[in-house]
């Protein structure tokens, strides 16, 4: 049985695309056949995050308009077996696709793939409606900030109103040092407010920017803490029960040495 999972957030810039890229790559590394669908028409980015921007010929709009066959638009990621990208169109707008067309597309993709991950645009308008149209499940990405949590709450309401039950929460960019000081909402605080099930927590990690610079998802980086977090989340997507990782080890060697000698970190 294939699953269509939409990755959404309401607010922009909280890490939907990064999450889509990492969970998708993680699933492929575990032997699943995966397609990443970028529905952010006009502002596509999943292609650059995946490092596949130079291989785009056709896009999502070409497929739904019948300008090409689905197989022609799918970009095979040569680095990871079983991983494909369906890029968004860059020169069109969200209204170029309808929810009904998205349902049809998702159903077509189900024949070929174990997992169809839909990268949703920010906002709650047409792009959001398209992205969730064909989805069975959803992952709501948020960060420990009032604006992101508020928007996540709105999105959770809209998902449930559209019969996408049990959305899962991914809390991104957690800074454990700030949580300890009482200057950032903790995982428990956010779950308390949003009252949905947690699928994982990703620490704020500069390796994410480094890996995005290179177009290589952090999930493949064994040394990165965020990479480990995404590997755990991938397993949870597959139904495995993986305990939350300890975010406290996020300090680098230098910070640990400083602490050892009683030097306050800058």
């Amino acid at each position: 049985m294939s699953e269509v999972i939409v990755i959404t957030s309401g607010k922009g810039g909280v890490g939907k695309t990064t999450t889509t890229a990492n969970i998708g790559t993680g699933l492929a590394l575990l032997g699943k056949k995966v397609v990443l669908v970028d529905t952010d028409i006009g502002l596509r980015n999943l292609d650059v995050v995946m490092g596949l921007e130079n291989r785009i010929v056709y896009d999502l709009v070409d497929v739904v308009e019948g300008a090409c066959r689905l197989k022609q638009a799918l970009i095979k990621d040569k680095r990871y077996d079983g991983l494909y990208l369906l890029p968004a169109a860059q020169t069109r707008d969200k209204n170029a696709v309808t929810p009904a067309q998205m349902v049809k597309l998702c159903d077509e993709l189900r024949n070929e793939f174990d997992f169809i991950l839909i990268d949703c645009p920010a906002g709650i308008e047409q792009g959001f409606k398209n992205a969730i149209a064909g989805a069975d499940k959803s992952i709501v990405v948020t960060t420990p900030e009032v604006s992101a949590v508020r928007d996540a709450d709105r999105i959770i309401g809209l998902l449930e109103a559209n019969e996408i039950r049990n959305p899962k929460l991914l809390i991104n960019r957690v800074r454990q040092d700030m949580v300890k000081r009482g200057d950032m909402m903790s995982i428990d605080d956010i779950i308390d407010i949003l009252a949905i099930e947690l699928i994982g927590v990703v620490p704020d990690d500069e390796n994410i920017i480094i890996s995005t610079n290179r177009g290589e998802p952090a999930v493949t980086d064994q040394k990165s803490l965020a990479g480990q977090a995404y590997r755990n989340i991938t397993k949870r997507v597959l139904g495995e029960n993986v305990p939350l990782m300890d975010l406290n080890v996020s300090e680098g060697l230098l910070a640990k040495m400083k602490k050892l000698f009683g030097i306050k970190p800058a």
Partner: protein
Amino acid sequence: MMDLLKLLGLKKQSSKDVAKERLKLVLIHDRSNVSPQFLEMVKSEIIKVIQNYMEIDEDSLDIQLTKTNSEDGERVVPALVANIPIKGMKNAGR
């Protein structure tokens, strides 16, 4: 120690507690702010059910989403308040 300082008013409330309190309040408002179409849907369903048992004055029926204190009085929770004037009972209801 932190709590003691807080009690004495010497320590400022942590910024995450401020964030949490503000969020809780704003979400009560957000969550109760439903679309008129949604309320219209609820209204027509309620009328349908009640009309099986009573004759009601549809024109002066009033239904709205508002806030009320929870039973323990500690929280503010959303509430659906409906004011439905009854004209008479139907035989089926007896």
